[in-house]
């Protein structure tokens, strides 16, 4: 298993769709895969580089992407023609990008998400377990510990940012056979603590602010993904820290470390631990575990 390759997926023909007069939505695949996501990132990067007049928003997503346009400047059909052209020319094998390997400390089974998940047991598939107990069981793990070992055992790549400002959707960098998968809550919760770390479908997320949510709740990070006042040192350029393509390395911490880091964040002095790395999909696909080890070494 350790040497398993990731096989590129043969994607279907993209589905080009109008979001009324002012959006073009392109679904590259119905199922999640690194191939679909890398394609979404590559095409949207090309769109940004071409600086196409009339494109006002450019949003890569997990296995799709969306552009908002001013149709009085560019007709959606003209844009779609250009996107088809881009798609035909794209060579994903040669595609690489600069990214960041980011350390994300997490207190799993923390008191705050525990209180929330207990409060909403009636909206969950399994009222008699915690979200982690349930997730471990349906993924075939004997214990929560073993499940968490798998969850933090390989980094997670940010494949989309959105829902609310700063929320990263992350896909774990392992072969499909090792991917964890869980359903979302039967009925969404009306409350989730800020900085909660959740998991739904095949995506881990960090909730930037308190609010509604439907993902299984596992823990809480002391660090921020959104800093509206931009007062923390790493938020000088943007109020949002994670970007699509970033790689998050979740790290288990205890309560004491959580409190220490939280104190630094609240004092406005906390700085993210991260390193810039060059990401090569081809090398990653060839030997994912080895590649991840080399990547994560830079912040250890």
């Amino acid at each position, binding site marked *: 298993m350790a040497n398993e390759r990731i096989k590129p997926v043969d994607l279907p023909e993209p589905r080009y769709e109008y979001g009324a*007069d002012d959006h073009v939505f392109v679904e590259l695949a119905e199922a999640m895969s690194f191939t679909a996501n890398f394609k979404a990132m590559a095409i949207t990067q090309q769109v940004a580089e071409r600086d196409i007049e009339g494109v006002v928003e450019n949003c890569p997503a997990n296995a799709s992407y969306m552009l908002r346009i001013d149709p*009085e400047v560019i007709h959606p059909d003209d844009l779609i023609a250009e996107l088809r052209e881009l798609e035909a020319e794209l060579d994903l094998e040669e595609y690489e990008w600069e990214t960041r390997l980011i350390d994300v400390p997490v207190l799993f089974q923390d008191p705050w998400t525990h209180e929330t998940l207990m409060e909403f047991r009636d909206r969950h598939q399994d009222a008699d377990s915690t979200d982690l107990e349930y997730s471990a069981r349906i993924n075939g793990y004997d214990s929560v510990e073993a499940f968490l070992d798998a969850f933090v055992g390989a980094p997670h790549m940010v494949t989309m940012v959105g829902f*609310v400002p700063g929320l990263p959707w992350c896909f774990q960098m392992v072969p499909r056979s090792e991917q964890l998968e869980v359903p979302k809550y039967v009925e969404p919760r009306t409350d989730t603590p800020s900085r909660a770390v959740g998991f739904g479908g095949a995506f881990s997320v960090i909730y930037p602010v308190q609010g509604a949510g439907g993902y299984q709740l596992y823990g809480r990070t002391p660090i921020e993904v959104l800093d509206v006042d931009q007062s923390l040192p790493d938020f000088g350029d943007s109020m949002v820290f994670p970007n699509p393509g970033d790689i998050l390395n979740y790290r288990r911490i205890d309560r004491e470390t959580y409190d220490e880091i939280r104190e630094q964040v609240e004092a406005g002095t906390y700085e993210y631990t991260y390193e810039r790395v060059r990401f090569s999909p081809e090398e990653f696909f060839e030997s994912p575990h080895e590649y991840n080890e080399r990547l994560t070494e830079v912040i250890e």
Partner: protein
Amino acid sequence: MIEIREGGIASTVQDLGRTGHYHIGMPPSGAMDEYAHTVANYLVGNDGDAATVEMTYQGITATFDDDAVIAITGADMSPELNGDPIGTWETVAVDAGDELDVQFATDGARAYLAVAGGVDVPEVMGSRSTYTLVGIGGHEGRGLEAGDELPIGDPANGSADLVGTRLPAEYVPDYADEDTVRIVVGLTSYRLTDEARETLCSAEWTVSAEADRVGYRLEGPDLEFEERDQPFGAGTDPSNVVDLGYPIGSIQVPQQPIVLMQDAVTGGGYATVGTVISADRGLLAQRQTHKTVSFESVDVEEAIDARRRRSERLAEIRSVIDG
């Protein structure tokens, strides 16, 4: 300066929104009814993107500490100045010390107060629009409350000459009659059964009490999904898709449809089945809770035409007002 005495139910400062940040999860915000907002600005000599006060169901009570030129458009909320009724869709002079009292909406849901010079709160990421979820823009990132003071920008030359200008009746919408909004069916509408796609456009939907700047939840018949083995990463419910971007105006179907509005969540894992066209989003924003609405399916050319006609109409209004 405008001093707020009563904030109403949900009154926020809005312009035409912030663009370029959707990919980090930042919705545009901005006026829900762009037509009414823009006309209000034109009536006081502002550009269309100056900031106005958007009032929902109930207006504000406020005093002016200087002479000002104002216009109120959108929903009819029976505004009064010092206790006397004033016209809507009309340019009105206000004297220093006057009290403006905007009451409950009788027709429509949102009214816009424009003031010559615009509401001059600081720009955040290129816009003065309020986005309350994360508390940015507008006045301190939140809805207006008693005691708030709104600064006013420098009026354009000649704005005082506009006093008494009334928008010709042909340009004034009658929100009570606007019970149809046009949509382009698409996005992941392949998830619905043929019958459900038909139901979407034939049913009469009722605007629920959960209808705000984020989204309008509608009540009506159930929409069934095509059966399938759920794709990897989507989640188990038939309504789930691999999380994707949501267009402004898009209709998602967690159970009952929700139309996403200006403070939309930017993406998520529910199937999207169509999008309200840009020219009609403001009409939906004026639809009160418990009123009904129907969707009319149009193609993209009609959607673009409607947008173009609205731009032309606004240009005509500008030239009528400026004489």
